[in-house]
């Protein structure tokens, strides 16, 4: 037993407080080292936008920009919920049709039964939560693989949607509030107010954190970097709100059309809420832990079953929200709502954003970025005027190209040994 003298509190204080310069330097080293966070997804988006703008200049108009949000909203919302399930390395094939079933409940309650909109919305979301609970119980307690459970649910929900629609008819939605969700815009002033609020809130959180850490003597980013971040957010939001507040009616005589689409604050709030849950609460921490190493999580005393059930509840709940938005956008619900490619696109959105299908890696923001990529591709392809065969092919190729940008920029990660 050699008892070497070990200095207890070593040169911790020697570590220089990072300056702006060293921060940038470290960031650049991280990027070169492959730790690039959201950069590739943003890169994909920029590349796609540039490509489509060149091919079809109309892509760059304010009207098209506003369209993007409502077009991508439903899939993005479903993808946000799916991120939770994917974080555990599970899959929910039924999320698409679950959104359909919830939308069918919504339509039945509001149109057929004639209840007010908020009752219908509550009923739809409650349905989603119950569905999720059921799926979660089957996966966690009975132990059937989630692929099989949700494949069975995928079939069953199709049937339930059909039955709720009386075997094929569709149900229209006439309620103004519900229709407004995906079809109306905020008054320009409200848009500005919300943007200001968001920036203020972000600034408060960031600065508080900075001061708190500095007070405790912990390593923190230099204040200039923090301020730059706040400024960047303000700039982005400002530009976006400005563009969305431009008049985009094709014919002002008929109707005026301007303002931030109502779905935008809905997505933004849900994004903030779920990002908060995942990053700043112990529940979120446990989700990552179970996804990263289920056995380690169990040994750490985490109630793994409860976490597994909960993610299915969140996923189906978000699917319900997605279903409501889809119903609002289409003014109606039919047995195919949530069907066709909705599920694949939603999972694709999460994966393109950077979420791993093996669990443990992913963020809610991924779903939004990936959803944006898919919405942009869909939107851009809609302007190209191809026949359907060609359109499918080009869409696939564009998607692949976008993913290749991501993959190639992440290759360095593999090269330097970080996973």
């Amino acid at each position, binding site marked *: *037993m*050699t*008892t*070497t003298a*070990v200095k*207890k*509190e*070593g040169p*911790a204080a020697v570590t220089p407080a990072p300056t702006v310069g060293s921060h940038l330097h470290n960031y650049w080293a991280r990027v070169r080292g492959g730790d690039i966070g959201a950069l590739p997804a943003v890169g994909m988006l920029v590349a796609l936008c540039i490509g489509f703008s060149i091919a079809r200049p109309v892509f760059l108009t304010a009207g098209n920009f506003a369209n993007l949000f409502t077009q991508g909203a439903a899939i993005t919302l479903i993808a946000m919920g799916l991120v939770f399930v994917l974080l555990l390395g599970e899959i929910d094939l039924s999320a698409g049709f679950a959104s359909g079933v919830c939308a069918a409940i919504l339509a039945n309650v509001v149109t057929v039964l004639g209840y007010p909109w908020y009752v219908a919305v509550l009923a739809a979301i409650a349905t989603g939560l119950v569905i999720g609970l059921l799926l979660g119980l089957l996966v966690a307690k009975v132990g059937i693989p989630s692929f099989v459970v949700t494949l069975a649910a995928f079939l069953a929900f199709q049937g339930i949607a059909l039955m709720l629609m009386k075997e094929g008819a569709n149900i229209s939605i006439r309620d103004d509030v519900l229709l407004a969700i995906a079809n109306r815009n905020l008054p320009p002033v409200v848009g500005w107010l919300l943007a200001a609020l968001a920036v203020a809130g972000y600034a408060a959180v960031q600065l508080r954190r900075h001061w*708190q*850490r500095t007070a*405790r003597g*912990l*390593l923190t980013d230099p204040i200039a970097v923090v301020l730059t971040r706040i400024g960047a957010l303000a700039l982005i939001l400002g530009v976006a709100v400005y563009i969305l507040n431009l008049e985009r009616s094709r014919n002002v005589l008929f109707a005026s059309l301007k303002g931030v689409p109502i779905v935008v604050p809905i997505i933004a709030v849900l994004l903030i809420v779920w990002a908060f849950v995942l990053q*700043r*609460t*112990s529940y979120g*921490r*446990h989700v*990552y*832990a179970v*996804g*990263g*190493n289920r*056995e*380690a*999580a*169990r*040994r*750490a*005393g*985490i*109630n793994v079953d409860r976490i597994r059930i909960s993610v299915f509840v969140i996923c189906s709940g978000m699917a319900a929200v997605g279903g409501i938005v889809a119903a609002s956008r289409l003014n109606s619900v039919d047995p195919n709502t949530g069907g066709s490619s909705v599920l694949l696109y939603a999972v694709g959105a999460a994966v393109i954003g950077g979420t791993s299908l093996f669990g*443990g*890696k992913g963020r809610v923001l991924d779903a939004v970025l990936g959803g944006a990529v898919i919405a942009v591709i869909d939107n851009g392809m809609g302007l190209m005027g191809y026949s359907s065969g060609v359109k499918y092919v080009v869409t696939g190729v564009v998607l692949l190209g976008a993913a290749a940008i991501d993959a190639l920029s992440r290759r360095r990660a593999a090269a330097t040994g*970080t*996973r």
Partner: protein
Amino acid sequence: MSATPLLELRGIDKSFGPVQVLRDVAFTAHAGEVTALVGDNGAGKSTLVKCVSGIYPTDAGEFLYDGQPVSIHGPRDAAALGIEVVYQDLALCDNLDIVQNMFLGREKRTGIVLDEPTMEQLAAETLAGLSVRTVKSLRQHVSSLSGGQRQTVAIAKAVLWNSKLVILDEPTAALGVAQTAQVLELVRRLADNGLAVVLISHNMNDVFAVSDRIAALYLGQMVAQVKTTDITHSQVVELITAGRSGSLGLPADPAPGSNGNGAEPADPTPGAVR
């Protein structure tokens, strides 16, 4: 040490399918003492630990904790009783960083929000006490740590809490000279503070340096549990490799594998394919 032991196991049996790994194992750990658990590779030490911490259900046997019979159905039950374990296979989440792993399952919070600064400070202090000098950042993912660094994180994680029984399964296997010394010192300190400590190790020097009692497992059977002062280095090695040493251990010969299939000390025999 006539006081009731903190942990007492009686007649523990454990099989995996057709293979019986533990048979009729008795074991005690006293508060204020370091009990070393020794045994050959595959003797069943880690399995015994996992039975105690509720990871594996036992086939038969009794658990007494502080003299009271208890049943442990999972790691949560064990944690509730104040049992902390450092597993041989470490069980860290590779996708989380050092601080996140250390506080996993018991995060510090203010309201519902995680209190990261506090956790970071506590983690830094604990690790500093374990002589870790090459970790670049506490926010590093554990997947990028060296073998010894991982082990240190696992140890630090277990000793952060106020527990009554700490079990360490080969905690110093991957550690350097200085770090090993530090951990052994820590083990002694924990026991001196009144905790019961169970230390599994293959290193006899370490075992004799810190332990008060030695328990020896041989092919799934507990062959002796004696005071460290009552036994010699080479006797322990004999117990480990042959199951007995003089009057200690298994009764003299009649073929060691007489009471059952599967557990005789066989060289690996080619098994049937499928």
